[in-house]
C-alpha cells in the first residue's frame, strides 16, 4: 500500500476514485434520485398551481409571494424545520427540495401562460375549442419551454440542496464531502464529493437547456421558415 502522504492531491484523487469508484457512482445516483424526486413532486403540484393562478390572477399575488418567502429561508434552516416534522433521512430532503422548487416552477408556468399572445387563445376559442382543449392544445405547448426553464433552475438548485442533506443522514455525494472534512488527508475526498456534484449540476443544466430549445415553438417556426 502506497503512503498517501507522499502523493499529491491530484494523485490522491485518482487513487481514491480507483479504489472507491463504484461507491462514488452509487452515491451519485442516490444524489440525483433525491434531487429528481423533489423536483418531480414540485412539478406535479407546481404546474397545475401555476396554470390555476394564470386563470385566476387574483390568486397569483399571494401564491407567488408565499413561494418567494419560502425561497428566502436558508436551505439549512428550512431543512431543520421540516426535520422537526418528518424526522431524519431522505423524506425530509425530498420535501425541502420540493419547497425550493415550487417558486421557479409555479412562476414560470404562470409567466409562460400569461405571455401567450391573446390572439392565439382567441383563435382557439373561435374554432370552438373547449377551455381544456385550449389549455392542452394551445397554451401548454406554447409555454412548455418556459416551464422547462423553471424545472431546469429548480433541478440545479435541488442538486445543491441535496448535498446539504447529508447532514441529516440522507446520503448522496454530501456524505463523501463530510467524510473528507473528517479524514486525515481529506482534500482529495472533498474533491471526490464536490466535483461529481458540480458535474451533475452542469449536466442537468445543459441537458434541460437543450430540451428547452427543442421545445421552443418560436425557434421551431424559424426552422420551418428557413426550410
Amino acid at each position, binding site marked *: 500500500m502506497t503512503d*498517501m502522504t507522499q502523493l499529491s492531491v491530484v494523485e490522491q484523487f485518482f*487513487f481514491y476514485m480507483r479504489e*472507491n469508484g463504484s461507491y462514488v457512482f452509487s452515491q451519485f445516483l442516490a444524489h440525483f434520485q433525491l434531487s429528481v424526486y423533489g423536483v418531480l413532486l414540485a412539478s406535479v403540484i407546481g404546474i397545475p398551481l401555476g396554470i390555476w393562478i394564470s386563470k385566476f390572477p387574483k390568486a397569483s399575488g399571494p*401564491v407567488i409571494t*408565499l413561494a418567494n418567502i419560502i425561497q428566502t429561508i436558508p436551505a439549512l434552516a428550512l431543512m431543520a424545520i421540516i426535520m422537526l416534522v418528518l424526522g*431524519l433521512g431522505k423524506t425530509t430532503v425530498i420535501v425541502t427540495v420540493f419547497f425550493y422548487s415550487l417558486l421557479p416552477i409555479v412562476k414560470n408556468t404562470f409567466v409562460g401562460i400569461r405571455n401567450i399572445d391573446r390572439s392565439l387563445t382567441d383563435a382557439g376559442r373561435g374554432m370552438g375549442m373547449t377551455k381544456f382543449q385550449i389549455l392542452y392544445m394551445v397554451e401548454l405547448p406554447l409555454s412548455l419551454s418556459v416551464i422547462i426553464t423553471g424545472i431546469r433552475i429548480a433541478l440545479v438548485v435541488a442538486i445543491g440542496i441535496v448535498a446539504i442533506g447529508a447532514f441529516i443522514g440522507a446520503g448522496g455525494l454530501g456524505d463523501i464531502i463530510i467524510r473528507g472534512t*473528517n479524514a486525515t*488527508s481529506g482534500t*482529495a475526498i472533498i474533491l471526490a464529493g464536490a466535483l461529481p456534484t458540480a458535474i451533475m449540476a452542469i449536466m442537468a443544466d445543459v441537458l434541460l437547456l437543450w430540451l428547452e430549445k427543442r421545445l421552443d415553438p418560436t425557434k421551431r417556426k424559424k426552422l420551418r421558415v428557413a426550410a
Partner: protein
Amino acid sequence: MKKLIVIFLVTILLSACSNEANDKIRIGSVVTTESQIIAYIVKGMLEYYTDEEVELINNLGSSVVLHQAMLNGDANISAVRYTGTDLTGTLKQEPISDPQKALAAVQRLFQDEFQMTFFDSYGFNNTYAFMVTQETAKQYGLEKISDLKDMASELQVGVDTSWMNREGDGYEGFVETYGFDFGRVFPMQIGLVYNAVSQNEVDVVLGYTTDGRIASYDLVVLEDDLQFFPPYDASPFADTDLLEEKPEVSKALQRLVGKISTEEMQRLNFLADNNLIEPAVVAEEFLKENEYFSGDDTP
C-alpha cells in the same frame, strides 16, 4: 389560499405516511469513521442474512442525537454504542470502571427504560486516551497521564467538544481525579485532534484508542494510571420490538459479537482515514474476508 394550504398539508401528510408505512430497517451512525464502517458492516450483514430493506442515517452529530433519532423512530438500529458514553450520557449514571459491570448495567437499564437492546461487545474498546507525538514523549519522558502534572499549566490541549461538558468522565471529573488542569484547552471536532497534535498546533490531545491515525502519525498513547476513563466497549444496539418482530435481524447482529478486536478496528479505521478507502468499501471487504461470519453455523 385555503386550497394552497390544503395542498401543502396533504403533501406533508402523504410523505409522512409513506414514511411510516414502509418498515425499512434504518441504521443510525454518527460522523466518526468507526461508526460509519460498523454501520456498513451491519448493513452488509443484514442484507446478507435477511430480506429486509436497509437504509443508513449517516453523519449524525453525536451519540445523544443518535439516541434521540432512535427514540423518534427515525432509526431502529444504532451501528455502534459505547458502554461508557451511554452510561454517563444517555442514562445519566455514575461511571463504572469494571467493563463487565458497566455492560451489565447498560443492558439492564436500556431494556427497562427504553425497550432497547444493548448487545454484547463487538470486541473492541474505544476509550478516550491522551496522546502526544513521539518527539514530545521522548523530550519530556512521558509515559502516563500523571507525568503531565508538572508542566500541565503550560500545555495546550486539544479535546473532543462533547468531552468538555460531559459529566462524570468529562473534563471536570478529570481535574478532580488527577488534581491538575491544563493551561489552555481547545475543544474541537474529534477528527481534527490527531492532525492538530502531529502538526504541533497543540501539545497533547485527547483521542480515541481505536483511531487509525494513532498508527499513521506514530502517536504515543499515555497510560491512564489512575484509571479515570471508564471502559467504552462497543456494541450493536437495536430496538427490542424490532428484534422480537424479526428474530433473523437479532441473529445477524449476534454473529458480529466478539468478532472485531481493538487492533482490527484500528486497522479498519486506518484503511479509511489514511488510505482513502471509503467506509462502505472497507466494510464490504472486511465482510468478504470473513465470509460474513457464517463459520459458526451449527446445522
